[in-house]
């Protein structure tokens, strides 16, 4: 893994989030550089989505800071949001709009008009193969197409920083392969964060993996380092080893 000398695209420092009595994210710190693809792994409810929501400015952290390209999401949310392309969990989109109209809306908010808007839209339509459903409303699309519309929307402004919450969830094997190739193609000059619970994905696209459980980072390293955590040299086994070791220690802490 090569990390260039530029300042990190995403810098997360001591991020903390509480929802009332629930402590969803605890003291999470990491940074992502351009050229890196970070895989965010963890059991359901581990705090992956919450962390992503805080980086993208949808949720406000209880404590800690997030810098994207040097902009603080708290004080300069618009600059942060302009830099990021974000695919939220479940790829929400306005159901009553046609795919084309929806992409036009996102393009307009991203500040494009006229010729440039058209070019941007045409580019992403080609990139994720949406040409066959352009005039269909989003609510009539299959899960796979809906996800692709979400990806298209996130790529529209060719963002420097790409954050995707389960980008391949609900896609068939071919579509999964396509999205992964797309991510790999883009990886060179972007900082990309994806969350997933498919561990093979880490191998396929990520240059780095973070395992998070109960809101804490348990592992941060390259895929090879992750695999080395397992005696069988296997991702699934490594994941289980790390998380069960953590939950066991949690249990002991609870008893003492």
């Amino acid at each position, binding site marked *: 893994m090569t990390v260039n000398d530029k300042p990190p695209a995403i810098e997360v420092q001591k991020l903390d989030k509480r929802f009332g009595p629930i402590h969803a994210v605890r003291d999470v710190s990491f940074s992502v550089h351009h050229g890196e693809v970070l895989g965010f792994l963890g059991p359901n409810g581990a705090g992956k989505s919450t962390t992503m929501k805080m980086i993208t400015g949808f949720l406000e952290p209880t404590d800690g800071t997030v810098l994207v390209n040097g902009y603080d999401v708290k004080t300069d949310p618009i600059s942060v*949001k302009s830099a990021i392309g974000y695919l939220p969990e479940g790829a*929400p989109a306005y159901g009553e709009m046609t795919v084309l109209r929806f992409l036009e809306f996102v393009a*307009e*908010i991203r500040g494009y008009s006229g010729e440039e808007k058209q070019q941007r839209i045409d580019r992403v339509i080609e990139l994720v193969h949406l040409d066959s459903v352009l005039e269909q409303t989003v609510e009539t699309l299959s899960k796979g197409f809906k996800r692709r519309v979400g990806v298209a929307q996130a790529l529209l402004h060719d963002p420097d920083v790409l954050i995707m919450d389960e980008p391949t969830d609900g896609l068939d094997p071919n579509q999964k392969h396509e999205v992964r190739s797309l991510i790999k193609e883009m990886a060179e000059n972007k900082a990309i964060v994806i969350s997933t619970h498919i561990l093979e994905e880490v191998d396929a696209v990520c240059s780095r993996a973070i395992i998070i459980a109960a809101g804490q980072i348990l592992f941060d390293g390259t895929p090879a380092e992750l695999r080395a955590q397992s005696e069988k040299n296997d991702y699934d086994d490594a994941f289980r080893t790390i998380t069960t070791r953590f939950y066991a220690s949690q249990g002991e802490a609870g008893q003492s």
Partner: protein
Amino acid sequence: MNSNVKAVLKRELYGYFHTPVAYVFIIIFLFLTGIFSFYLGAFYERGQADLEPFFRFHPWLYLFLIPAISMRLWSEERKTGTIELLMTLPISVTDAVLGKFLAAWCFTAIALALTFPMWITVNYLGDPDNTVILAGYLGSLLMAGGFLAIGSCISALSKSQVIAFVISVVICFLFILSGFPLVLDFFQGWAPQALVDVISSLSFLTHFDSINKGVIDLRDVVYYIVLIAFWLYANVVVIDSRKAN
């Protein structure tokens, strides 16, 4: 108006006209305004060439119809999760609130404009003072704006459109009646007279009535504009506070 406000406005208007909401609303609105002015308002029988019986019932129609328009503004976004998409695009909360409100207001203006046959009828039958009618339309539109701003703010509070609708109706009802004993009696016993006066001056009806009579008093116009600004500001605060939990 900046381009973000315009983009949201366009999207929301698109949303109205690409779901049955717009058509159901417009048809019901036109039907009820007609029924109310001709039967309850005795449009023919009173033998006067004006639209007073037409405008007289607008506050009561708006009481139920406007919350039906405004309830979806934010509740639906929260229910379907699109609010996460919208709020992670580079747009300020203020622009999003304004765009949505203006879209709902434009939509109401369209519905109101479609009542033009009433205006043609009264001009055909008699010789009305058209400036008074114009003032009536202006007053009605301003009042609709007030109702919408309340409804938009309330819809940001709940994921459920039904809850947003019911609470909006109740609050709008209090605003309509705040000049009447029903509301004032509640405060009369304990509150200082100054507060009672303020509450009674908040009534939608008093401010609407004078405009409806053709008197465009600057104070009435300012009243509605301040009311709209206040509720939209509250709307921004509500959306902002949701980021924390």
